[in-house]
């Protein structure tokens, strides 16, 4: 280390150690200021938060929302205790439920078999009279049997309001649109001034927050109804988003708390001093609050992915503190008579470089996530890099200032002999049985290569939740019985007709001009293509409910009327606006010259391969429509989500190659030795690749959280190697290679052992989550950290022993 730098740090530490109270006051002010901001840290789990940055499909999706006034909705499902959904008792229950739903202020409309308009269920009424009479299931003129048949075969109702087996009734709940949000979005699109745009965006975010709160309230009220109506299930994307937020919030609190308790217990077991327990927790709390304050001040949001930052930061921070404590105790046991200040000076000076490099490499690990293209992951990267810097700075400041105010501990706890024996065993194994270690390492590489080829990214919303959870049961029922869950949309855009100007024939000119009128938009080609596409989609085994212009054609067909161009044009011209809004506008946009097909996919079907499914639909539609001069677009939440999932593997490769490259350079810089750098890198990469092997072989899909494991583990895992090699280089100056390894294991090995176990137990706590990706994340990170410790304790010394020469290291 260069003496000038050392001098600078020495002065910094002296300032802290000489005025610990002032330093602590200063820290307290920072704590409260950022704590104020931290309270406002928003949580976002909307579908917007789960999209790729710059996804071109999102523009189309956005235009769908704009062009086809869509309304958020929830689906309720209720099954009769006896008989089918038309049983008298059940209809009474349904009526009571409808009345209760009407009391919820955020609900705009309710559609169920009770109020669905019927057209051919009154035998004595003509069509027009039925329309006028606004017939429903319970109207006096309705023939109950006819109504049952009409509902069951109705193209708009079947699989939406009624399951095919008549055992489940669906209740569609339309939520009130936030008109201010719509206005703001419109305003943002027309605004050209960038700063104004940003202002509007802020207002949009605020408004979205309000919508989210309102949705949460509505969902809570619906959940309360579940107590009153046994077996009532809730589903819909809005619910998934709301429940994900609830899980994120509860996870933040649960893991924050349980992790703190676990950490405290472990610290107490390892060090036997309450002061170290409280000191560590204080530093961790400080880092968490200040970091959260900074994120909030930057306008970041916590998403499903970045919610892990709490546990991650806690763990990284604990590892930093533990290294300091271990070093402090080591100095203390060596120089029991040294003053507290001198012990602290020695600890801070010895640990500053390895701690800095450890934090630095961790930051690189997280910063690499910026290359993922996935907004929530990018945020996690930024948030964690900031957090780690805060952790590094304040761990040193707080550790020094708080310890300076305390006396030396009266006694120190040594590692139990069993633990020490284990470390010694590892060192001896590395020295004596290196060939066996290499054999297992090669086996591990082969295993990983095999597994990596089987990595998959198949994620279903339904499977995000535990089997026992109520949300999963609701989602499953609605998915299976009421037409699927995740929406997919198909858009057919027709070319604008060019009127041939050369037509001099008066009649031709007259009809050409007539053709361009809205009424004639629903021409034969469109009706024919609507039929082809609709039937094609319906035949797909993964497609549930399909709605389009062809549903209208079928509805008219069911009434015994042949739905040709004329009838549709007539209906379009004569239908009331409310009816138009139901049957025309969601499926045809005249301005855009576009037909829209909305289908919901069976999300719970285990054989559904989302990417293949979307590709197949695109391919089939293109071949079906190849001579039609129409543009086909496949879009919807499913496509956006799939884009994200497909991006996971490539972003995993991008982030990993970045992080490996940079960490290698950092190793070269720290160790100034190519061999050491390569050895250090190998020690870390091997356990990491094993994780991908496990993922591939076990069939656990790579998900949004899983994709961050590699970068995070590498970032954290590297710390052990840095600390170890740093120590090893110090030991080798006075010892033989093998003794240096034994010494390093004995000293730094215990810190690595402590930190890894703390981290492992911490991540184990995540496995109790209700959110499946969190469970996988906890499990996989635990596994990778254990493998990394094993690799650092076995493979690293074995490689050092086999490939390093003392002469090259003693400089």
């Amino acid at each position, binding site marked *: 280390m260069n003496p000038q730098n050392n001098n600078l740090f020495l002065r910094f530490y002296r300032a802290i150690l000489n005025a610990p109270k002032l330093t602590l006051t200063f820290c307290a002010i920072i704590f409260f200021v950022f704590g104020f901001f931290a309270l406002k840290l928003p949580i976002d789990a909307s579908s917007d938060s789960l999209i790729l940055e710059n996804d071109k499909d999102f523009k189309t999706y956005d235009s769908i929302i704009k062009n086809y006034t869509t309304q958020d909705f929830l689906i309720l499902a209720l099954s009769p205790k006896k008989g089918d959904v038309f049983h008298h008792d059940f209809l009474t229950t349904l009526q009571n439920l409808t009345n209760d739903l009407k009391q919820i202020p955020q609900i705009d409309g309710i559609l169920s078999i009770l109020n669905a308009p019927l057209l051919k269920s009154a035998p004595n009424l003509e069509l027009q009279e039925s329309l006028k009479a606004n017939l429903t299931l319970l109207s006096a003129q309705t023939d109950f049997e006819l109504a049952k048949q009409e509902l069951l075969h109705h193209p708009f109702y079947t699989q939406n309001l009624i399951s095919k087996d008549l055992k489940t009734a669906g209740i569609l709940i339309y939520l009130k649109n936030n008109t201010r949000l719509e206005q703001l979005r419109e305003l943002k699109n027309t605004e050209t001034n960038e700063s104004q745009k940003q202002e509007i965006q802020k207002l949009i975010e605020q408004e979205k927050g309000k919508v989210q709160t309102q949705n949460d309230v509505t969902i809570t009220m619906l959940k309360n109804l579940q107590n009153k109506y046994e077996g009532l299930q809730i589903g819909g994307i809005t619910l998934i988003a709301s429940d994900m937020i609830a899980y994120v919030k509860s996870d933040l609190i649960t893991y924050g708390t349980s992790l703190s308790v676990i950490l405290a217990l472990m610290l107490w077991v390892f060090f036997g001093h309450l002061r170290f327990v409280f000191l560590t927790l204080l530093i961790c709390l400080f880092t968490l609050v200040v970091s959260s304050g900074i994120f909030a001040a930057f306008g970041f949001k916590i998403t499903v992915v970045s919610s892990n930052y709490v546990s991650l930061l806690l763990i990284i921070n604990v590892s930093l503190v533990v290294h300091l404590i271990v070093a402090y105790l080591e100095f203390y046991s060596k120089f029991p008579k040294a003053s507290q200040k001198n012990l602290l000076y020695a600890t801070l000076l010895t640990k500053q470089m390895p701690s800095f490099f450890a934090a630095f490499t961790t930051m690189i690990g997280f910063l690499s996530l910026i290359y993922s293209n996935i907004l929530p992951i990018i945020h996690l990267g930024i948030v964690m890099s900031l957090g780690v810097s805060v952790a590094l700075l304040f761990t040193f400041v707080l550790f020094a200032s708080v310890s300076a105010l305390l006396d030396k501990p009266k006694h120190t706890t040594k590692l139990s002999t069993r633990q020490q024996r284990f470390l010694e065993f590892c060192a001896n194994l590395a020295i004596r049985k290196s060939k066996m270690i290499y054999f297992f390492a090669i086996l591990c590489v082969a295993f990983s290569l095999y597994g990596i080829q089987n990595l998959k990214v198949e994620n279903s919303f339904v499977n995000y939740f535990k089997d026992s959870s109520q949300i999963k049961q609701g989602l499953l029922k609605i998915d299976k019985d009421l037409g699927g869950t995740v929406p997919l949309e198909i858009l057919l855009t027709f070319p604008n007709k060019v009127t041939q100007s050369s037509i001099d024939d008066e009649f031709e000119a007259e009809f050409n001009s007539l053709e361009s009128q809205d*009424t004639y938009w629903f021409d034969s080609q469109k009706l024919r293509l609507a039929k082809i596409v609709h039937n094609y989609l319906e035949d797909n085994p993964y497609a549930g409910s399909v709605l389009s212009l062809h549903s209208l054609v079928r509805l008219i067909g069911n009434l015994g009327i042949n739905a040709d161009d004329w009838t549709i044009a007539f209906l379009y*011209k004569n239908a009331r606006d409310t009816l138009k809004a139901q049957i025309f506008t969601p499926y045809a946009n005249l301005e855009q010259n576009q037909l829209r097909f909305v289908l919901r996919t069976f999300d719970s079907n285990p054989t559904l391969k989302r990417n293949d499914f979307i590709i197949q639909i695109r391919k089939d539609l293109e071949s079906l429509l190849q001579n039609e001069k129409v543009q086909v677009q496949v879009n919807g939440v499913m496509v956006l989500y799939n884009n994200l999932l497909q991006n996971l593997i490539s972003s995993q490769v991008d982030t990993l190659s970045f992080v490996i490259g940079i960490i290698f350079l950092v190793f070269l810089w720290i160790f100034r030795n190519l061999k050491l750098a390569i050895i250090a890198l190998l020690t870390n990469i091997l356990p990491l690749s094993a994780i991908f092997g496990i993922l591939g072989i076990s069939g656990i899909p790579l998900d949004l959280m899983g994709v961050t494991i590699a970068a995070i583990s590498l970032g954290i895992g590297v710390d052990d190697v840095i600390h170890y090699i740093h120590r090893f280089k110090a030991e080798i100056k006075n010892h033989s290679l093998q003794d240096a390894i034994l010494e390093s294991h004995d000293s730094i090995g215990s810190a690595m052992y402590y930190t890894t176990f703390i981290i492992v137990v911490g991540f184990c706590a995540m496995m109790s989550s209700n959110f499946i990706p969190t469970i996988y994340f906890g499990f996989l990170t635990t596994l990778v950290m254990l493998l990394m410790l094993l690799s650092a304790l076995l493979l690293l010394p074995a490689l050092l022993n086999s490939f390093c020469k003392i002469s090259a290291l003693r400089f």
Partner: protein
Amino acid sequence: MTQNIQKTLEILQKNTTKNPKDSAISSTQVENIAKEIFIMFDSIFDYNLMAQLSLSKDYKTLTKIQQEEYTQAFEQNLKRSFTDKLRLYKDEKLEVLGGEQPKNNRYNLKTSMVLDGKLNYVIFKFYEKEGDWKIYDVDILGISVIQTYRSQFSDILAHSDFQTLLAKLKSEITFESPKQ
């Protein structure tokens, strides 16, 4: 010209007065009325031109024999469809409102019916042919009959040949027709 218009008005009014307000009429009655209308209208409808207009530029690509065959099939189809259409609005009263002349050689005869409390029109479109006035299109409730034919025919011809069109014209293509 005035004579012819007057004659048409009379025919229409005669028919509409036959249809007493608020009374339902049977299918046979509808067919009879339709037949009567067609007998009287046959001389006014220019089926030949309507057939040509419905096929647009494709008409010229047909041989003489094909043109004749097509025109005949078209006329049959139009009559059948028109009869069906009457059935849909059988309980509504048709009133002649008068006419307008958008161009020198065009005359639109406007008739009205109240449907679902809303005023709707059936417009007979005339053009001047050698000093006489002939119908070349009918707008029923705002929808041009010829235009809907044009849309269907052009779509069929974009994918199939003339024979397919002819076959469909004889069987499938109709305006809406309540299935019995």
